[in-house]
C-alpha cells in the first residue's frame, strides 16, 4: 500500500515535459515534490498563478501570495500573475493540459464526485467543475476505499457529481487504473505488496484484469 506521498510519487511519472499542470488540494499538491529533473512543467494555481513555486522560507510569507489552497507560496522565475477570469480562460480553453485532483468517488464511466455530501457537508466545487469539464487529461489521486472500508471505485457515483465522463486515470494507494472509453477500470499496476485479489476485493466498479499486472516502479 502506498501512503499519500507514494501516490503523489507515482502520479508524478504521468507528468510530461512541457505540460501546464493544475494540482488540486491534498495529495495532488504533493506531486510537485516528485517531478524528475529534466521534466519542465509549470504549475497553474487557479487563483491566479502560472509558475507556482515551493512554500516560502519562514519569515518570507506574503499575505498577497497564496495558492488555491490558501497556502502561502512563492513564484518560479518566469511566473505570471493574473485574475480569476483569465485563469479559467486558461483552464476552460484547454491550455492547462493536465489536472490532478482528489475525489470522494469515481465511476467506471469516468464520473467524479468530490464536492458535497447531501445533508452533511457542502464545501463547494471551487474550480473542480471547470477543471474536470475542460482538461484533456484528468487524473484522480485518492485512497481506494473510504474510512469505513467501502470502495470509492464504483459502477456509479452515489454522491452529487462534479463532472461526467471526464476522469482518464485513477491512482490510489492500491493501484493504477485507466478508465476505458467504453467504460470500466483497466488495472495497469499494483502498489508494492498489494495483490490483484486485494484490488479486486476493494473495487466495486467493473475491473478489467488482463494478463500479468506489474508492481509499480517507484524507482
Amino acid at each position: 500500500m502506498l501512503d499519500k506521498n507514494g501516490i503523489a510519487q507515482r502520479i508524478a511519472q504521468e507528468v510530461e515535459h512541457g505540460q501546464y499542470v493544475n494540482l488540486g488540494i491534498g495529495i495532488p499538491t504533493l506531486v510537485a515534490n516528485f517531478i524528475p529533473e529534466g521534466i519542465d512543467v509549470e504549475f497553474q494555481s487557479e487563483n491566479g498563478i502560472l509558475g507556482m513555486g515551493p512554500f516560502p522560507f519562514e519569515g518570507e510569507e506574503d499575505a498577497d501570495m497564496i495558492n488555491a489552497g490558501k497556502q502561502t507560496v512563492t513564484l518560479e522565475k518566469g511566473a505570471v500573475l493574473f485574475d480569476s477570469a483569465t485563469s479559467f480562460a486558461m483552464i476552460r480553453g484547454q491550455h492547462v493540459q493536465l489536472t490532478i485532483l482528489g475525489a470522494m468517488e469515481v465511476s467506471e464511466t469516468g464520473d467524479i464526485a468530490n464536492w458535497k455530501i447531501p445533508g452533511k457537508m457542502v464545501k463547494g466545487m471551487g474550480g473542480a467543475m471547470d477543471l474536470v469539464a475542460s482538461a484533456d487529461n484528468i487524473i484522480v489521486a485518492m485512497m481506494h476505499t473510504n474510512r469505513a472500508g467501502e470502495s470509492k471505485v464504483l459502477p456509479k457515483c452515489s454522491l452529487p457529481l462534479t463532472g461526467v465522463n471526464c476522469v482518464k486515470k485513477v491512482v490510489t494507494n492500491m493501484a493504477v487504473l485507466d478508465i476505458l472509453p467504453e467504460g470500466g477500470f483497466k488495472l495497469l499496476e499494483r502498489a508494492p505488496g498489494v495483490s490483484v485479489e486485494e484490488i479486486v476485493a476493494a473495487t466495486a466498479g467493473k475491473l478489467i484484469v488482463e494478463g500479468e499486472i506489474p508492481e509499480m516502479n517507484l524507482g
Partner: protein
Amino acid sequence: MAMNKLVSGVEEALEGVHDDMTFMLGGFGLCGIPENCIAELRKRGIKNLTCISNNAGVDDFGLGLLLQTRQIKKMISSYVGENDEFERQMLSGELEVDLIPQGSLAERCLAGGAGIPAFFTPAGYGTEVGEGKEVRMFNGKPHILEAALTADFAFVKAWKGDSSGNLVFKGTARNFNPPMAMAGKITVAEVEELVPLGELDPNFVHTPGIFVQRIFQGASFEKRIEQRTVRSKN
C-alpha cells in the same frame, strides 16, 4: 481631464447601500478582500444581503463577520469550506446558498461587466449546477448556458489606485477583483496606497478607471494569512 472618483473614506464610499441589495466582493479566501467595506457594512447593520463572493471568509474575518451578525440572506460562491458558522447556517436552512463553479463565477461577473448576457460553458454539465439550464452541443461536447451576474455595488480591494479609479493589484490579491469591478452598478475600490494621477503607468493598469465609481484609501488592512505554510532553510 480625468474624472475625479475620490471620496473621503469608507462612509462616503458606501452611501446608498441598504437592505436587500446584491453585492459583489472581491478576494480569494482572505486574500485581496475589501476589509474596510466589509467592516462598514457590518457597522451599518443592513440586512437581507445577497453576497457574491468566491468564498465566505472564516468565522471571525472577511464575510464571516457579516454571517455572525446574520446580515446575509444569500451567498453566491464557489467554495465555502473553512467556516463553521457558515456551514451551520446553510445546513439549517437559515442561509440560502448558490454554489457555482469558480470559473463560471468569474466569467459570469466578467460577462455582466462586458454586456454579454449569457454564454455557453462545459463546466457543470451533468451535475446539479446544470439542472434546469439549457444544454447545447459544441464540437461534440455538451455545454450549458450561464447568465451574466451584476450587482448593486461591487467592493474591490486594490494595491494602488488613482483619483480617476485606475487600479493595480498585487500578487494573487488580484483574483476576482477585476471581473467584479466591471460588474458593479456602483463599484467601490479601497486601496492600500492612493497615488497621484499620472503615477500609474498607462500600459500597466489592471482595472481601468471607467469601471470604478468611487475610490478611497483604506484606513487599515489586516491582510490575515489563512494557511501560513513555510519550508525550512535546510
